[in-house]
C-alpha cells in the first residue's frame, strides 16, 4: 500500500493486550486518514452517550496519509475521543516530531480501549509493543517524564505524555509531545489519565512507500520553495511566530480583554511579538519537515519567572494576557511553560482564570473560597491559579472544571464565554461574525481550528472579508470546516496547508493538496473528491455529536446580548440568528441542524 500502512494497532488497556488490524482500503479512501478514519471507527465502535472518563470511552491517535512523507509539514497527528469538557467530540491536533515517528512504527493509528489497572506506558517499536510500568513516572511533569522515557527506551524514540493535570482528570488537561507541543483542547489529557496511561513512546524506520515518489518529491520541493520565498520577503510567521497576532486583533478591536468585557487591551504593546522578540526570544524553531519555522524558543533568564522553553503562541497571549488583563510578559511566558510542563491547554486554563477574575471582582466568589485576591492584571495570582488548577488543589479543584461549570457553580453562568462548555479562542465574534457561526456550530465546541475563517475576516488570506458582515458567512464557514477536516485527515499543518496547497480563491480549493494525496496514495483522488471527503468527515462527526446529546448550536449571552464597548466593532453583538438557518440549509441539514437522509446518502454515511 502507498501513503497509508493500512494497519492499526488496537490496544486493549484492560487486558493489556494488543492486536494488529488491517484497515479496509475502501474505508481508508473514503475517510482519508487522521481525523476522518478516527471518527469512522469511533462512530462504529462506541456509544456516543458513554461517560467520557469511563473505560468505555475510546481514544484514538491517528496520523494521515501525508504524515512522514516529503510534504512540507507532513508531520501531524490527531487525538480523537469523546470530550469530558464538552460532552461532544474532541479532536486535538499536534506537530513536533512524534507524529512522524508514530507513522514510522508501521501503524497509521492506535485505538485505545478500556483502562489499565495501574499507571503504565506503551512502548511501540515497530511490531514490538510493550506495556511498561509507569509507577516511577506518575506525578512527574511532562519534561521529566519525557527525559526518563527516552533514557529507558531509546534516544531514537519520541514521547507523548500527560502531566499531573491529566493524571488528576482536570478538564483542561492536554497531551504533550516532544516537551513543547500539545494536543491540548477539550480535555483529551483527562481521558488519557482516566485510562491510567501515562505515555506513549514510539520509534521505527517504516517510512510509508509513495505511489509516485518522483512527482511527490518534486511537488513537495516546489511547495517548500514557495514557503521559502515568502519567508525571504519577510514573513511575520517566521520573524514573530503567531505572536505577531495580538497587534492585529487589537487593531481590529477583537482581542479578548478581561474575559471578553472589551475588545481592545491598553497593554498589548507589552505582550506582543515585538516585545517577545526584543526581550525573550532566542530563535525560531520548526516542527519536523517544516520550512515555515513559526515556533519560538524563548528564555526568561532570571528573576521570579526564570525558565526556558517554547512559546508563547498567540492563543496563549490572548488567554493569559488580554483575557486576564496581564501586561507582564515574563509572567505570561512562565504560565505558558507551566502549562506545557504540567500538561494543560493554555486557552482553557487562561480563559477559566479570566472568568474567575471577573467573578472575584464582582463579588460572586468570596475571597476565602479562592484563598487570595484574584483581580484582573494580577500576574502572580494567575500563576498560582495555573499551578492549583493542574493539581486540583483548593480553589484549583473548581478551576479544573473549566469556566462554564465554575460560573454555574457560583450562580453566574452569564460570565462564562463558552460554546458547548469550551472556552473561546482569541477572536471576539462580535467583531468577526463568521467566527461566531464557527464557534456555535463546531463539532468540538468553541474552536478556531475547526474552520478558521479568521484567515479571511482578519488576515486577508487569501482575500479579505468584511468581519462585520454576516453576508456569505454560512457558505464560507461550512466550506472552511470541510477544508480543515480535509487538512486534519491528510496529516498536514494548517499554517502551511491553507496558504500553499489550496488555490487562492475566497472558497479555497484544494488542488495542490489533492495532487499530493494522489502522488502519495495512487488512489485517483481529485480536488472535488478530497473536499467531499472533508464534508463526509464533518457530517459523521456531527452525527456523533448529536447522538451524544449535544444538539444546541448557540453562543454565550455575552456575545449575543452585550455589545462591544470599545474599538472599531463598538456597539456590535454576534448575529448568529442571521446566519444559522442559512448555514443549516446550505449544509443539507434540517431546521434543527440534523443532517437529512438525502445528505447522509449523498455522502455514503449511515442514516
Amino acid at each position, binding site marked *: 500500500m502507498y501513503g497509508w500502512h493500512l494497519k492499526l494497532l488496537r490496544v486493549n488497556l484492560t487486558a493489556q493486550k494488543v492486536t494488529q488490524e488491517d484497515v479496509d482500503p475502501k474505508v481508508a479512501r473514503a475517510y482519508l486518514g487522521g481525523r476522518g478514519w478516527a471518527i469512522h471507527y469511533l462512530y462504529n465502535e462506541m456509544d456516543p452517550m458513554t461517560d467520557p472518563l469511563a473505560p468505555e470511552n475510546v481514544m484514538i491517535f491517528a496520523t494521515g496519509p501525508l504524515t512522514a512523507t516529503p510534504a512540507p509539514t507532513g508531520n501531524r497527528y490527531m487525538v480523537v475521543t469523546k470530550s469530558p469538557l464538552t460532552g461532544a467530540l474532541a479532536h486535538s491536533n499536534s506537530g513536533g516530531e512524534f507524529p512522524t515517528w508514530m507513522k514510522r512504527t508501521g501503524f497509521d493509528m492506535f485505538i485505545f480501549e478500556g483502562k489499565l489497572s495501574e499507571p503504565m506506558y506503551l512502548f511501540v517499536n515497530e511490531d514490538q509493543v510493550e506495556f511498561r510500568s509507569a509507577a516511577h513516572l506518575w506525578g512527574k511533569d511532562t519534561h521529566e517524564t519525557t527525559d526518563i522515557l527516552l533514557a529507558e527506551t531509546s534516544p531514537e524514540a519520541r514521547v507523548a505524555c500527560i502531566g499531573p493535570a491529566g493524571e488528576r482528570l482536570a478538564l483542561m488537561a492536554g497531551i504533550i509531545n516532544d516537551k513543547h507541543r500539545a494536543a491540548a483542547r477539550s480535555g483529551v489529557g483527562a481521558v488519557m489519565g482516566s485510562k491510567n496511561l501515562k505515555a506513549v513512546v514510539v520509534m521505527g524506520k517504516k517510512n510509508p512507500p509513495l505511489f509516485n515518489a518522483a512527482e511527490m518529491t518534486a511537488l513537495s520541493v516546489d511547495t517548500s520553495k514557495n514557503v521559502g520565498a*515568502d519567508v525571504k*520577503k*519577510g*514573513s*511575520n*510567521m517566521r*520573524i*514573530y*511566530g*503567531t505572536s*505577531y*497576532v495580538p*497587534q*492585529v486583533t487589537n*487593531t*481590529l*478591536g477583537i482581542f479578548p480583554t478581561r474575559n471578553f468585557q472589551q475588545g481592545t487591551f491598553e497593554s498589548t*504593546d507589552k505582550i506582543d*511579538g*515585538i516585545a517577545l522578540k526584543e526581550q525573550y526570544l532566542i530563535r525560531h524553531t520548526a516542527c519536523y519537515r517544516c520550512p*515555515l519555522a*513559526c515556533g519560538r524558543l524563548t528564555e526568561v533568564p532570571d528573576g521570579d519567572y526564570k525558565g526556558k522553553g517554547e512559546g508563547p*503562541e*498567540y*492563543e496563549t497571549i490572548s488567554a493569559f494576557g488580554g483575557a486576564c488583563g496581564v501586561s507582564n510578559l515574563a509572567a505570561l511566558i512562565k504560565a505558558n511553560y507551566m502549562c506545557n510542563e504540567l500538561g494543560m491547554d493554555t486557552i482553557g486554563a487562561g480563559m477559566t482564570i479570566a472568568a474567575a477574575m471577573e467573578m472575584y471582582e464582582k463579588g460572586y466568589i468570596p475571597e476565602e473560597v479562592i484563598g487570595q485576591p484574584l483581580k484582573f492584571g494580577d500576574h502572580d495570582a494567575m500563576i498560582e491559579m495555573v499551578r492549583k488548577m493542574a493539581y486540583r488543589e483548593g480553589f484549583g479543584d473548581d478551576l479544573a472544571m473549566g469556566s462554564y461549570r465554575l460560573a454555574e457553580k457560583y450562580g453566574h453562568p452569564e460570565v462564562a464565554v463558552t460554546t458547548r462548555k469550551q472556552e473561546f479562542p482569541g477572536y471576539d465574534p462580535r467583531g468577526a461574525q463568521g467566527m461566531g457561526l464557527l464557534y456555535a456550530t463546531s463539532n468540538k465546541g468553541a474552536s478556531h481550528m475547526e474552520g*478558521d475563517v*479568521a*484567515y479571511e475576516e*482578519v*488576515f*486577508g*488570506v487569501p482575500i*479579505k472579508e*468584511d468581519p*462585520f458582515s454576516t453576508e456569505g458567512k454560512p457558505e464560507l464557514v461550512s466550506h472552511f470546516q470541510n477544508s480543515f477536516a480535509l487538512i486534519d485527515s491528510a496529516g498536514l499543518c494548517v*499554517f*502551511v496547508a*491553507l*496558504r500553499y496547497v489550496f488555490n487562492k480563491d475566497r472558497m479555497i480549493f484544494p488542488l495542490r493538496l489533492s495532487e499530493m494525496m494522489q502522488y502519495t496514495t495512487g488512489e485517483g483522488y481529485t480536488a472535488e473528491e478530497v473536499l467531499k471527503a472533508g464534508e463526509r468527515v464533518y457530517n459523521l462527526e456531527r452525527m456523533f455529536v448529536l447522538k451524544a446529546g449535544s444538539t444546541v448550536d448557540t453562543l454565550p449571552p455575552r456575545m449575543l446580548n452585550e455589545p462591544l464597548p470599545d*474599538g*472599531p*466593532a463598538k456597539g456590535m453583538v454576534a448575529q448568529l440568528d442571521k446566519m444559522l438557518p442559512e448555514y443549516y440549509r446550505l449544509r443539507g441539514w434540517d431546521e434543527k441542524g440534523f443532517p437529512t437522509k438525502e445528505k447522509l446518502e449523498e455522502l455514503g454515511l449511515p442514516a
Partner: protein
Amino acid sequence: MMIHVKLLANYREHLPPQAKNGGVDLDVPDGTTVREALSNFDIPLDDSSVIVVNGLTVSLDTPLKAGDVVSAFSAIAGG
C-alpha cells in the same frame, strides 16, 4: 490635517526613528488618500498586505479625515 499611521509587526522597521509604539503622527494635505499616506513609507505593499482605517477595511483610494488611524500589516498565515 493630522493623521496617525501604525505599522504592525515586520512593517514596523519602515517607520522613522522618532516613531513611538509602532506609530507616527503625520501632517498631510486635506483629501489625502490611504494610498498616498502610505507612500510616505517604504513598505513593500503586495497582495499579502492588509490595510485598515480605524480598524475597518476600505479602498486604498479612500480620502482620509483628520484623526484617522491607518494601520498596515502583512499577513503571511495566521494563528
